[in-house]
């Protein structure tokens, strides 16, 4: 068994949206390398509770990499040093004994801090409401495979649909741009027959909402995709750019 870790933590503490906030330093000892990063935070929080201090607020739910809520900017990278994992999937064996770990919330104007490491990501929800859906009449479910879909398209759409809305793309981007998230949500429908009727309207309205929320523009640095826990590819951004041009040229609006 590997040696347990003693760690120094510098964690962003902020009482509420209006508080200025500051870093607090903590020590945690005897952390098992098999723990996840969130479990290490659980240890720290129980320590704080026994000391009668306010535990650190952080978002978490599934703890298996599918809900996208565990937003933490760890040592300068969203979800820490490992590739394609969320914070809940990050194991403490990725750190060394005696390390100092700096933990900050996502930083973006459209993601205001609610408390400590918890940010408000409803901007993403509003972008989805603007067009990230398909309108269907309810009724009997269609037979599976009734609509032929090329395998490559189905795979691409599935890859896009793997986006868990965690916001790491925004957090990693130097412009706090939401292009990777929005493009994944545009692509997952743009590639499938069911998405065609609203294809142009969808991309126009989702982009309009994205701009309204105050996300930055895209510089194609690729930081988003490199930090995305689901490996969403930049090709989706290119597809969204294409679709947006096509939608602008083809729209009935004069």
């Amino acid at each position, binding site marked *: 068994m590997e040696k347990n870790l003693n760690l120094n933590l*510098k964690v962003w503490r902020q009482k509420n949206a209006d508080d200025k906030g500051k*870093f607090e330093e903590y020590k945690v000892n005897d952390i098992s390398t098999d723990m996840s990063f969130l479990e290490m935070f659980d240890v720290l929080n129980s320590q704080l509770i026994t000391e009668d201090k306010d535990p650190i607020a952080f978002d978490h739910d599934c703890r298996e990499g599918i809900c996208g809520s565990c937003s933490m*900017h760890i*040592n*300068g*990278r969203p979800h820490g*040093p490992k590739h394609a994992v969320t914070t809940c999937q990050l194991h403490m064996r990725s750190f060394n004994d005696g390390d100092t770990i*700096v933990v*900050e919330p996502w*930083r*973006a*104007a*459209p993601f205001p801090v609610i408390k400590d490491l918890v940010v408000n990501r409803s901007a993403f929800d509003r972008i989805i409401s603007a067009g990230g859906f398909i309108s269907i009449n309810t009724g009997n479910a269609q037979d599976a495979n009734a609509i032929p879909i090329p395998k490559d398209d189905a795979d691409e759409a599935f890859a896009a649909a793997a986006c868990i809305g965690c916001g790491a793309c925004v957090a*990693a981007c*130097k*412009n*706090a*741009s939401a292009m990777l998230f929005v493009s994944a949500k545009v692509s997952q429908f743009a590639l499938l027959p069911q998405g065609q009727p609203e294809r142009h309207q969808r991309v126009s309205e989702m*982009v*309009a909402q*994205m*701009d309204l929320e*105050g*996300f*930055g*523009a*895209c*510089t*194609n*640095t*690729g*930081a988003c995709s*490199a*930090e995305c826990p689901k490996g969403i590819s*930049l*090709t989706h*951004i*290119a*597809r*969204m*750019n*294409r*679709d*947006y*041009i096509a939608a*602008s*040229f083809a*729209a009935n*609006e*004069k």
Partner: protein
Amino acid sequence: MNWVIKMFSSSLGQKFIMALTGLFLCSFLIVHMIGNLQLFKADDGLAFNTYAVFMTTNPLIKLTSYLLYFSILFHAVKGILLVVKNNKARPVKYAVQNGSANSHWTSRSMGILGTIILVFIIVHMKNFWFEYKFGHEIGYTSYYTNLATGETGSKEMSADYTQFNKIEEGMTADEKGQYRLVIVKDLYKAVALQFKEWYLVALYVLCMFAVAFHLYHGFQSAFQTLGLNHSKYNGLIKFLGIWIYSILLPAGFAAMPLFFFFK
């Protein structure tokens, strides 16, 4: 028209402008390089000077050059406005940010690299374009080409020689044979003289690094912005971006001041 304005004022549309103007500037760099290669010709500048006249008088090229000036201004202003807008999207910065873990530094420095290029363009246009078109410093040189032997000789015209046209062509003869005579505004000499100044040479060489790094990211980025991302062609785009735009062209442009400095 509404939809055009709406498209180009969205965050995506603003990037379309950057990409379209950027690629137009990229295409200009090729033309500029091919023309300027004539500086290396050992003819005292006859070919280069004749070319300069052509470039400043041909109506089609004049029209394109106005589009070019406009593109440079638009690209620079829009670029800086985008940097400002993008900074506003993150009002509180990270205490620790490990950018090199997920992106190339050139892609994160487009604004500063562009600003260096802008300073360069201003100095460059002032020294050559403005002086050539509006200045009084650049004199005339006459070139005699012996029609039988092809040998060329040149002689500077006296400082008070001026003419409306930048070029006069004619024939002359002496006991050695017939000559084609060209009297032309001598931009070549202005280039040769300026590049004897070490600080200008240093500025040019340094700025070509900025061009190289700007285009190392910029060239391929423009295709992505316009939605032209396809696994079949990405390799070619990357290849051109690296070899043509961040190695060959900047090295070629940097070679010009160095050539005259050490000549």
